[in-house]
């Protein structure tokens, strides 16, 4: 099959050297994808739901200390460990977009996928959080995205609703999707333009060029999961 030979279609590059750790991506993601807030107590216990989160690490010894931010979301692995372990095919690979899909109404909540995700990118609906949204706030909900009820797993979809929208628009206008036309919420909100999204199969797209940067690395490369997200980090030696 043609799709199998493709290295991947939609991909992302995150430039950690310009990321300021402002968490705008986290907020934008929550608003775009109807991610509920879980409340003070549950969030404090470690049940905050985020499809993207900014990992903060400290580098150096006090007082010469500086924070290091790393936004991490589902890496849309080409060989995703989460997929084959699901007993009911609730998380599957999209051959067209080359991303991982989560089928909410097929999920029965074994949570095996989340255990097997080396990036800990998945969030679980422990309670009916989306039902707890106070009344006027439910008008904020994005009609293009399913509101999940309790007992199902969810995760970053690369804003698949925006991808579809862009593809449909291009199709209606009888043209190919332009580079930079489709932007997920996190990339759109990023004030320093640290998140670049686009088509990896087009070698001239902005994301493909960035992904070939000398500062490139992927998370946990040794696991062979073939992530679609590339990180750029100079580690203080800016060569390229």
């Amino acid at each position: 099959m043609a799709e199998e030979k493709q290295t991947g279609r939609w991909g992302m590059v995150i430039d950690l050297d310009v990321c300021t750790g402002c968490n705008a991506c986290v907020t934008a993601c929550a608003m775009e994808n109807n991610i509920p807030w879980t409340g003070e107590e549950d969030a404090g216990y470690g049940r905050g739901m985020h499809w993207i989160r900014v990992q903060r690490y400290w580098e150096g010894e006090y007082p010469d200390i500086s924070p290091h931010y790393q936004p991490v979301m589902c890496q849309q692995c080409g060989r995703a460990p989460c997929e084959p372990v699901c007993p009911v095919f609730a998380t599957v690979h999209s051959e067209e977009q080359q991303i991982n899909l989560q089928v909410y109404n097929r999920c029965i909540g074994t949570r095996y996928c989340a255990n097997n995700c080396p990036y800990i990118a998945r969030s679980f609906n422990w309670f009916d959080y989306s039902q707890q949204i106070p009344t006027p706030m439910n008008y904020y909900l994005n009609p293009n995205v399913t509101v999940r009820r309790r007992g199902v797993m969810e995760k970053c979809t690369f804003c698949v609703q925006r991808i579809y929208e862009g593809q449909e628009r291009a199709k209606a206008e009888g043209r190919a999707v332009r580079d930079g036309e489709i932007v997920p919420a996190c990339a759109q909100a990023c004030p320093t333009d640290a998140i670049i999204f686009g088509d990896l199969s087009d070698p001239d797209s902005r994301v493909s060029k960035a992904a070939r940067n000398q500062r490139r690395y992927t998370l946990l490369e040794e696991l062979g999961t073939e992530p679609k997200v590339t990180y750029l980090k100079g580690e203080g030696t800016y060569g390229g």
Partner: protein
Amino acid sequence: MAVEAKSLSTPIHGVDDEEAELREQLMFDPRPREELNRMVMESMVHTTPRYWAVVAFLAVVVLVCLFGAWGYMIATGIGLAGVRKPVYWGVFIVTFVFWIGISHAGTFVSAILRVFKAEFRRPFTRAAELMTTFGLAAGALYPLIHLGRVWVFYWMIPYPNARWLWPNFRSPLVWDFLAITTYLLSSTIYLYLPLIPDLAMARDRTKGWRHAVYKALALGWRGTEAEWARLRKAITIFAFAIIPVMFSVHTIVSWDFAVSQTPVWNSTIFGPYFIVGAILSGVSAVVTILVILRATLKHMDYFIRKEHLDALGKLLLVFSMAWAYFFFNDYLVSWYGGYEAVRKVLFFHSSGPDAWIWWSMIVFNVVIPWLTLWNRRIRRTPWVMLIITLLINVGMYFERYTIVPMTLAHQRFPFDWGTYVPRIEIIISIGTLALFILLYMLASRFIPMVPVWEVREGQEAHMIRQIGKARVPTVSELE
């Protein structure tokens, strides 16, 4: 060589010391079949007010802690449990693995010891097989309890949905489903088959509702040659076939962990390591139950003797050593591999905030059995064995706790490290413990706890043989 063989069915006059010692063994202390039947029947119908009080208490515990708490959790959300972001599996899975481990006892004692013709197994095969069935019944609840949406659990059953999508047969959870179904069905049948002659015995000796039930269950058993031949054939097929099934069940449970990429879980030795742990835990539970049965069930002190605790104690020592070997093998290779994430997890196990669990596991599974079970007097003292075997099972529970939540809590990204505190899991786990004990107590008054015909067959097969000036126990192969 001239051999004088003396059948034990007839009383021997002039018993000397050597023989007196042999007669402490069940097989050399034969009683007429009639009396054995009477003893077993009496043990079944004899109940005390204390028995009913315990049954009522356990029934309340099951109702409240299992069905009440579980129902409340279904209505509210799985969030009532303590599971959280990196620790998606907690005490539910720990208890699941624990019960599946307990269920290995019946098969081990009954099938493996039967295949190897270990004579000491005879009086307690049924007690062990009952543990298998009830342990599985308790354990099989957990894959349901821990689901986020238990009301659609049947989507795991191999049948297609409206769009002809079948379950994913590459998922270890579907393997689990198939393996546990196979094991539950086959171990229940394996409990039932050798029970048929005893049910016929009970049928002949009861009236009223008991008679009606035993009559239906005994399938019109008369004891003809054809019936015995069929039974022998079927038991042989089962004994040989159920052993690999038993191995596969706990191996597949271990694969739930081992096929994943989580550090420390991803280990090729997990299959046999889990099996050895399951047998250690299962055989310990058999000893625990035997000691309790001996003290509470009428006439059981005739059937269950110190020799049986002794023999099982030796097995426990061997399996404790085997467990330590596998544990160390897994630990050393993981540690030596030098993969940073793995080392961090191992370090977290033995020196994190829950390190006392890891250290208790070592003490209960290795230190205590090794220091005590080599001693014949300890092995033959029921109350000491009760304590030791209970501790071994606590240790095995801690082992699974170390493997599941304590490993998940400490994965590759330090940002996501977190600790896990069980909440409603504890109540539901107590509920299934009560369910297991309740089922067992009820069964002990309904199912002949001792396979009478097997004991009698064994007693027929045992002789004292005179070789020179010595008298030696001899077993003829009647099977």
